[in-house]
């Protein structure tokens, strides 16, 4: 092997080794395809085995009777000063009986100013909607309310 050939091969090897880890990191851990998840496993995945405390700080606003299960507005507000020392880290919204119990995980920062989040979710039938809140000191708070659905909105 000549010296210049050796350097060419070295270059290609270096390029491949540089590309492979970048590709493996690019695959992000975001959900793809239809997922199936139980409520309890979802709650465990969020809290990591810790017990979530029921608290009046978390206010969950859901209609008691939803005529259409396809569009159910949900609002979660948390009493928090939202400073760098004490803020709400994440808000999770869960449902009780859909095939996937997780709806959305929201990661907040002190730049938000107020700890509030609202969306619209789908519900397959009459069930409980739960909000799990993670504080910056590692505590978990929980609030839930049952919703009566007259027409299911899944599928």
């Amino acid at each position: 092997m000549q010296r210049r050939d050796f350097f060419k091969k070295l270059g290609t090897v270096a390029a491949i080794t540089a590309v492979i880890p970048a590709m493996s990191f690019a695959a992000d851990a975001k959900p793809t395809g239809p997922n199936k998840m139980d409520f309890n496993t979802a709650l465990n995945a969020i809290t990591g085995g810790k017990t979530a405390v029921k608290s009046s700080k978390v206010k969950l606003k859901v209609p008691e009777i939803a005529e259409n299960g396809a569009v159910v507005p949900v609002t979660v507000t948390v009493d928090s000063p939202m400073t760098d020392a004490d803020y709400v880290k994440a808000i999770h919204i869960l449902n009780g009986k859909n095939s996937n119990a997780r709806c959305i995980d929201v990661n907040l920062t002190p730049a938000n100013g107020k700890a509030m989040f609202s969306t619209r979710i789908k519900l397959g039938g009459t069930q409980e909607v739960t909000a799990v809140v993670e504080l910056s000191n590692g505590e978990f708070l929980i609030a839930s309310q049952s919703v009566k659905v007259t027409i299911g909105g899944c599928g």
Partner: protein
Amino acid sequence: MVDFNHEKIKNIKDKKEEFKMEERKSLIKIKPKRYKDGEIVKVSFMVMHPMDTGMGKDKKTKKLIPAKYINSVKFVYNGKEITNMTVWESLSVNPVFTTYMKINGKGKLTVTYTDNTGEVHEKSKKIKPKG
């Protein structure tokens, strides 16, 4: 020459319509409309998206509709990430994401969402505090 001109005009019209559709695909709303520096405002991001779970059936062909749903949304203000969300399929069709935000000088708010099929969409709005 005349045909050429017609084609040109048609092309411009098509492009305009495409641009309009792109605009209508998503919307950022800030409440109140007039705000000062340091104020906390409500920001809502609305998207036109089917949010198919992968379990519903087409009524005519009776075949499963493949899953197509948003799986992540990011709010970025002046290069700093404010809020980031992991989304699952049980959100409603054409979802709305509403949070609060602290105004901190002139700049730009950019919201991006990605799809489970790999679609990426970006929308931005200028932020001009008055007074």
